[in-house]
């Protein structure tokens, strides 16, 4: 779980609340088929990759190294080609799975939550904000 939260911090680039992201990953690991195993493998693979880059672990690595590690999963927003997808499937390379089920889902969570704060909102949809101040724009 620590590796996932560290990945969230790295990929979003914002000071995130670890509990918010941790709860999200925990629920998925407990309720959705395949996630627990995927998350565990991600932690091991991320650690291994971080050590190859000179860090003690993925969690302890600098954001630069973490992003470098996650770059193995990422494709800069570019959709995978059919050839890349096929090659990944045949080779057993797990990083495309991490891209889809860790990186993209983390960014999707960020988009519907913390991104609102970054845009200047008081809270994101799903957080009770009360009705007493919505008419007045806060500083």
């Amino acid at each position, binding site marked *: 779980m620590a590796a996932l939260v560290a990945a969230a911090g790295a990929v*979003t680039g914002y000071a995130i609340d670890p509990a918010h992201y941790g709860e999200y990953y925990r629920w998925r690991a407990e309720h959705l088929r395949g996630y627990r195993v995927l998350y565990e493998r991600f932690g091991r693979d991320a650690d291994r990759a971080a050590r190859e880059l000179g860090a003690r672990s993925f969690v302890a690595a600098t954001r630069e190294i973490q992003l470098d590690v996650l770059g193995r999963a990422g494709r800069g927003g570019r959709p995978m080609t059919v050839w890349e997808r096929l090659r990944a499937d045949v080779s057993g390379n797990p990083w495309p799975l991490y891209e889809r089920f860790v990186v993209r889902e983390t*960014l*999707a969570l960020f*988009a519907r939550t913390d991104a609102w704060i970054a845009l*200047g909102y008081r809270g994101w949809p799903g957080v009770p904000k009360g*009705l007493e101040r919505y008419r007045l724009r806060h500083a």
Partner: protein
Amino acid sequence: MPERSVAIVGSGVVGTAIACEFAGRGYRVDVFEKGPPYPYPHTPQFQDRFLHGYENPAHLPAAGIQGLSLTGDYHRDLDSERYAVAGGSATHWGAIALRMRPPDFHTRSGYGYGDDWPIGYDELEPYYCRAEAFLGVSGTDADNPFAPRRSRPYPLPPFELSYGDRILATRLAERGIALHTTPQAATRRAYRDRPGCQNFGACDVCPIGARYSPNYDLARAIATGRCTLHTRTAVRRVVVDRGRARALVVRAVDGMVDREHAAGVIVVAGGAIENARLLLLSSRERAPDGVPLSETVGRYLTFHHLWTARLHYAEALYPGDVGRFTGQSYQFIDPPGRGRHGAVKLEFSSNIVPPPERSLDEAATGAELVEILRPTRSQRMLTVHAESVPDGHRTVTLSEARDRFGDPYAHVHYELADFDHRTYAFGSGLVERFAAATRATGAEFEPFESVYSGCHHMGTCRMGRGPGDSAVDAFGAVHGVGNLFVAGGSAFVSPGAVNPTLTMVALALRTADYVTTRRG
């Protein structure tokens, strides 16, 4: 079969309103819903959607339940506009609760298009009051000079204009345009045992029941001990015997055999498309114990016509800071040109809609996501709610495709008319006026072809004076079958420009009143 029993097809807001009325008056009530149970308050659904990013398959209808076919000029997925769950589409609605205006009931005699209803605003007004009390509507007419008269105040005070809407309202007022608050079935304060809105901004699946959901009242009806909700149970036919509806033919969605459910009164409340389909499936043309039908059944399908503009502003207006929609304008709801084109209501939504030119999937980091989303702070979506005209070329018939029981699905044919083109042009001009008046720096308006119904489907079993012009009478009774009623939007003669749900509920309450008091 007890005489004081009613069987209701559909558990949406209309079926629920009728169930509550009958159960409250001592009737034995059975409500049939082909969709699955849907928990209330919608806290689990809220958690799935907003905390876990998960679509729970337990809340999806079984395979082979929905699959209508569609031809003509409407290009959206009509099945997805009809939520087959306990509580129906109003489990997800925006809860805008508006009254039609008196002229909307008489467009033929008043403006030369459409047809007149057999009832007028004055007959429906007391039921509008009751519908507002039933749903818990927050609102005021104090800032809306175009609101129709009312005999009772709103049950709850209004949601005031949001920060952004207040700025836009001031600018519009300088150009003589009124932007006023929006009556809505969400609790500005605690109402009955529903808590006051806390601005979760998750109105689709309000976790506390501040936004009205039929499941609230379904639970109350069930708690009387006189109402049973049969979920995952499809109604296949209405059976008629010697001029009276005798029973429904029902089958569990995963069942192998039909059974008859007898009732003294049968109310079909499954929405305009499914109501017509059920009656057509039950037609005497298809079975000796079928329903004698007017040739108008399935005709005059009418959608609410919505087109949305994206307006850009120099400053951040923070749409979505309050989840509820707050600002709308009735000013063009009875315009001077009405007759050449239809009426229009305009509404600023609180929705944040990511820019179409850049997908969120393009972002590789949070910072990139924020930059893609940043312009939305300074954009507002302005929706044109347009009146359409009833047209015999918009129909519900029986499809070639069949459901899991072998019954034909509905086939919808929907053509847009010249009248709709002219109404779109009128609305487009209003968008330009709004953009100029509010000092928008840019505006894009959806093309005509992208028309959206807003999940508001009406007509198909219109009310009228006899079987020559209509499917049901002014109280919703099927002509010739006095104890079989059609309730809700399918009984509309014409749609008006406003969101129709409050009118649907008012009509439902009027039907229940008629059956339980006047009819005896």
